[in-house]
């Protein structure tokens, strides 16, 4: 009797149903990895992981035996563009966050933050288009061909800047007011408060922002596809064209068959693992920071 009554209990049904949905949401990540593995399986069996780095280059073919599957140049392309973007964006983003919190009059700071939020919502294909029609011709006039690591780094830099700046800004906002008042009571000037008290206290959030910015830069497809030139090579200078892992997938999926397509899924898997590692490092940093502020 009690068993049948509880089976019809709407509360139990509700809780069970909700749990099931939550479990599915959590399982989605595992599903993504499993499906990538399934599709990458054939080529992974045929060449093993090492030929991804030991082959003579990226000359994929429909059969693993006929192709060369080195992703070194693609990794170098992704790395160079993401590194350039971060080097350009991080200092500007941190200075922007300090600007919002410590330098600008409140109204302008508010307006600036709103601008960053809108900028964060601009689609990557629009950034890519702007880079293609404005930046690439400009760079071309200076250092041909124009479509290059530099173009990619500039466009991506502008794209990830809001991510870093907004996270740094909210990290600065969560610095306890008591800390800032103490700095003021000690007679520290505004810039010493900002640089030597607030920024170090917000360090965890700032670093998390930078790491998530790097992850976004590595995972970005459309903008780099449109401005980087897509030549598979390890760049010798910032003016040379490169092809990133992401752009390579977008370019070749349209016509890839057999082991070639399988290899593209394998590069997708590499990309995913890379980004997962970055996100986990960022989470770790955030967790450590939260503990420190909670205890401090």
């Amino acid at each position, binding site marked *: 009797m009690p068993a049948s009554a509880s089976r019809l209990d*709407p509360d139990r049904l*509700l809780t069970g149903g*909700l*749990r099931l*949905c939550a*479990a599915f*949401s*959590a*399982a989605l*990540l595992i*599903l*993504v990895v499993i*499906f990538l593995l399934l599709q990458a399986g054939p080529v992974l069996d045929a060449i093993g992981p090492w030929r991804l780095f030991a082959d003579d280059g990226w000359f994929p073919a429909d059969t693993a035996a006929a192709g060369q599957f080195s992703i070194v140049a693609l990794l170098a392309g992704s790395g160079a563009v993401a590194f350039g973007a971060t080097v350009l964006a991080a*200092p*500007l983003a941190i*200075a*922007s966050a*300090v*600007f919002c919190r*410590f330098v*600008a009059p409140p109204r302008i700071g508010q307006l*600036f933050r709103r*601008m*960053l*939020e*809108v*900028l*964060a*919502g*601009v*689609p*990557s*294909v*629009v950034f*890519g*288009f*702007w880079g293609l*029609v*404005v930046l690439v011709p400009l760079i071309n006039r200076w250092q041909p061909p124009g479509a290059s690591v530099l173009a990619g780094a500039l466009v991506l830099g*502008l794209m990830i*800047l809001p991510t870093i*700046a907004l996270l740094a800004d909210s990290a600065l906002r969560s610095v306890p007011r008591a800390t800032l008042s103490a700095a003021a009571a000690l007679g520290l000037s505004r*810039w*010493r408060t*900002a640089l030597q008290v607030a920024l170090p206290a917000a360090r965890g959030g700032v670093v998390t922002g930078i790491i998530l910015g790097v992850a976004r830069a*590595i*995972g970005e497809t*459309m903008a780099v596809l*449109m401005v980087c030139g897509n030549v598979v090579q390890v760049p010798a200078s910032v003016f040379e064209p490169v092809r990133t892992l*992401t752009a390579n*997938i*977008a370019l070749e*999926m349209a016509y890839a068959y057999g082991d070639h397509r399988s290899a593209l*899924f394998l590069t*997708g898997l590499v*990309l995913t693992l890379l*980004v*997962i590692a*970055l*996100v986990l490092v960022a989470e770790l940093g955030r967790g450590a920071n939260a503990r420190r502020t909670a205890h401090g």
Partner: protein
Amino acid sequence: MGDRLLAGVCWLAAGIVAGGFAWLLGDIVMNGLGQINLMYLLMPVADAGRAGGIGPVIVSTSLILVVCLSVSLPLGLATAIVLSEADDERWFGRLVRRSLDVLAGVPSIVFGLFGYAVFGLALGLGFSILSGGLTLACMVLPILIRSIEQGLRAVPIDIRHAAAALGMQRWRTLVAVLLPAAAPGVLVGVVLGIGRAAAETAALLFTSGYVARMPDSLLDSGRSLSVHIFDLALNVAGGEPRAYAAALVLIVALAVVNLTAISLSERLLSSRINPA
């Protein structure tokens, strides 16, 4: 002296950022504005996009968004309810949260591969609006869940206690008390999700495809506005002017969507602080 230096450096940095923003936006508004009129928004695509309008593209984009939200919203709402009531020390809540954090970082092109393999191949949906919408649903799920959960957590614990004290069942509490109270948070999540989904290109390239005709059903391939911009910019010679127009339409739509989300969430935040 130091104060002046810091202020100078920060104003300079903010100026560079605002300058870049203005350059990007100004360029697209100046080159796009002249071509946009009612006919452009309604007419079918002609001559690979060099002529005609973007009517079918807007329809396809909207259908993709509808599919995306009708799947992700129920799933996201259910997950957010579980998370908002889950104890962080328990393994289940922690696992779901961590998994969603990582999912939020997965590159969109990887979601494209996943959607192609699952919806296109395994489920046999091919290149279709359904494939694209479902792929985007997976992609926006983390951002949706995060804001809905914030909305649910903002409901004061007193209200839950009051409902329990009245002897309400859990599901009645949820439907009659918690969801109405959390509605603004849900709305912010939906708007943010729409913003993210409408901006997406890479995940749609090999799920919803390139076809620019008016779709007959959800199983037809349909070109989203973002894919239209990409195609005009890179694959169509002389497509540049029309790419500007399409980019302006997308930017204006997204700015409206994002500003709505921001002002909604700020109102939500202030209403949470005030009663305390």
